[in-house]
């Protein structure tokens, strides 16, 4: 059945993939059909736009197997404002009336019975209605035979009247050409207390790149976090991503190369553990200090994590580190032999970790340690100068990319949330290829650092960047004013 799905007007690129991930989580796709038609372990939903609506519009129609699935998706989603059973729509109130009247009675009457309570909400997009106007519109619905009593606090049934206007001008909102009015019964809505509860400013222990709560929840949804699942973050930092996964009941595990972050924090009540305690969440199963470049997992270990969620260091706001020491990897010095009496307190030196190598290690680790059908969800930075296409994203033969959602960070670069599903097992050949690649990275450490240096591109002075002077400026100005991804 088709449902009206209304989104918050934020993170436009993330909306549909979130709903599709949740649809899979709540069993919208027949598991047997999934295997036969689509061995990749992933299906997409059918979507439809209201007449004349731009794809960035917050109003979408989505085909879901049942009301139960629709409700579960809406209640867990971060970006869905509500799912509605549409009773009628139109370009004018007259058209809306006809449309509602022609909607079959057997679908309407059960919700209009005399014993029930109801409430009608008025919502608008791209305009504001005064309370008076709202009341007027509600009273205009008197042709619907409401027999129940009004209850504004805790109604059995919520109805929504939603209106968009016919502003043609480019005012920063999607160019919807025509006024459209929707009336529907609410199936479910997002828990809007979630984000304020978890917002970073109330978090006790924060790092410079702690993941924003809303984004962390989106990542946890993409990773299908559920009770009984094990989720791992190899760049855990202050645990901001795992907090979201733990909220959904998943067991969490994290590693970081910086021992000050994972072990000490800022004291006994301000560390990674306290970030979980603060919200009454179960503590991570494990936190450890490990290097993603030389992971300490035992050789036979495979397919243990249901998902890996991570925000790897791109070298823009925080740079990655790996074992080995700068001079050592350059070949300038031979390995420093630690005297036996200093071994216990020795602080090993680390070297910068280029993004390419970091992502290679992440994919290799994920291919080995994620269960079949499990997900790898991580951010990957892209320069906005290139018109990026999908095949610029990292690839691995064990994984299929199922969603990529861009979030623009500055005029220079943006980050893309990649969601991958493991579709084939990790084999000896893949492991060997990864080993060879690992050696290559070691040998050409400096070359990779130079190639993968996003920092200098993002922070270099503007002039040197657009040396093809006139051309560069022109193309910047000719970009349309409205770009949905900014939202």
């Amino acid at each position, binding site marked *: 059945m088709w449902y009206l799905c209304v989104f918050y007007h934020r993170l436009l690129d993330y909306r549909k993939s979130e709903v599709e991930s949740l649809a899979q989580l709540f069993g919208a796709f027949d598991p047997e059909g999934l295997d036969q038609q689509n061995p990749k372990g992933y299906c997409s939903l059918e979507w439809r736009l209201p007449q004349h609506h731009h794809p960035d519009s917050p109003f979408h129609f989505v085909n879901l197997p049942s009301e139960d699935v629709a409700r579960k998706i809406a209640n867990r989603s971060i970006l869905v404002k509500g799912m509605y059973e549409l009773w009628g729509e139109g370009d004018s109130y007259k058209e809306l009336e006809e449309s509602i009247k022609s909607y079959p009675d057997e679908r309407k009457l059960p919700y209009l019975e005399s014993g029930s309570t109801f409430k009608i909400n008025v919502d608008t997009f791209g305009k504001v209605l005064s309370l008076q106007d709202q009341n007027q519109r509600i009273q205009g619905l008197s042709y619907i035979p409401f027999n129940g009593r009004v209850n504004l606090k805790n109604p059995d049934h919520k109805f929504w009247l939603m209106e968009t206007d016919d502003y043609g001008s480019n005012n920063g909102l999607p160019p919807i050409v025509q006024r459209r009015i929707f009336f529907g019964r609410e199936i479910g809505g997002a828990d809007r207390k979630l984000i304020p509860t978890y917002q970073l400013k109330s978090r006790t222990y924060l790092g410079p790149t702690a993941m924003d709560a809303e984004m962390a929840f989106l990542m946890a949804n993409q990773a299908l976090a559920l*009770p*009984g*699942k*094990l989720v791992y973050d190899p760049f855990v930092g202050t645990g901001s991503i795992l907090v979201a996964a733990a909220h959904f009941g998943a*067991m969490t*595990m994290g590693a970081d*190369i910086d*021992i000050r972050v*994972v*072990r*000490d924090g800022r004291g006994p009540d301000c560390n990674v553990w306290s970030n979980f305690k603060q919200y009454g969440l*179960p*503590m991570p*199963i*494990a*936190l*450890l*200090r*490990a*290097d993603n470049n*030389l*992971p*300490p*997992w*035992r*050789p*036979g*270990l*495979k*397919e*243990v994590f249901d998902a890996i969620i991570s925000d790897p260091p791109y070298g823009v706001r925080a740079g990655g580190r790996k*074992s*080995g*020491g700068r001079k*050592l990897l350059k070949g300038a010095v031979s*390995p*420093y*032999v*630690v005297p036996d009496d200093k*071994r*216990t307190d*020795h602080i*090993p*030196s680390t070297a910068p970790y280029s993004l390419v190598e970091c992502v290679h290690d992440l994919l290799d680790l994920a291919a080995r340690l994620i269960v079949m059908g499990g997900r790898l969800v991580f951010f990957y930075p892209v320069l906005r100068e290139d018109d990026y296409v999908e095949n610029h994203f990292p690839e691995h033969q064990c994984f299929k990319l199922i969603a990529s959602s861009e979030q623009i960070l500055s005029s220079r670069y943006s980050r893309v949330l990649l969601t991958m599903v493991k579709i084939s097992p990790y084999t000896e050949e893949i492991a060997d290829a990864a080993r060879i690649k690992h050696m290559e990275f070691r040998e050409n450490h400096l070359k990779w650092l130079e190639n993968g240096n996003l920092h200098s591109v993002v922070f270099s002075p503007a002039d040197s960047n657009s040396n093809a002077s006139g051309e560069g400026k022109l193309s910047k100005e000719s970009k349309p004013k409205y770009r949905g991804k900014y939202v």
Partner: protein
Amino acid sequence: MRLLTHNMLSSNIKGVTNGFPLRIEVEKVVEKEVDLNPDFLRSMFSKIDWKALVHAARSIGYSELPDEADPSMLDSDDFLSRFHHALLQLHLEEGVLICPETGRRFPVNKGIPNMLLHEDEV
């Protein structure tokens, strides 16, 4: 550090071929209650190296695990609760993990194993 983590870790010093299982030297063990999730335990069972778990549990003072285990035992509540206790509720808070081949000591402080290698080990 729980024994689940111990069961997943090995010494990855360059040249070490048999870095698993790490020997445990105990300074302080604590018990923390965790809700028992049978589905999680069942899915973990096949991924666990049982011998290493039994050994590790003994070395921190818990010897209620059977020497051999097979998947049919997962139907027993008694077995599940012992498995759960060993895997998730016992924590090595302070101690050392020791590489079985080289004797390299990986410290565990405040429950966090430090698996980072020295310069001459990578």
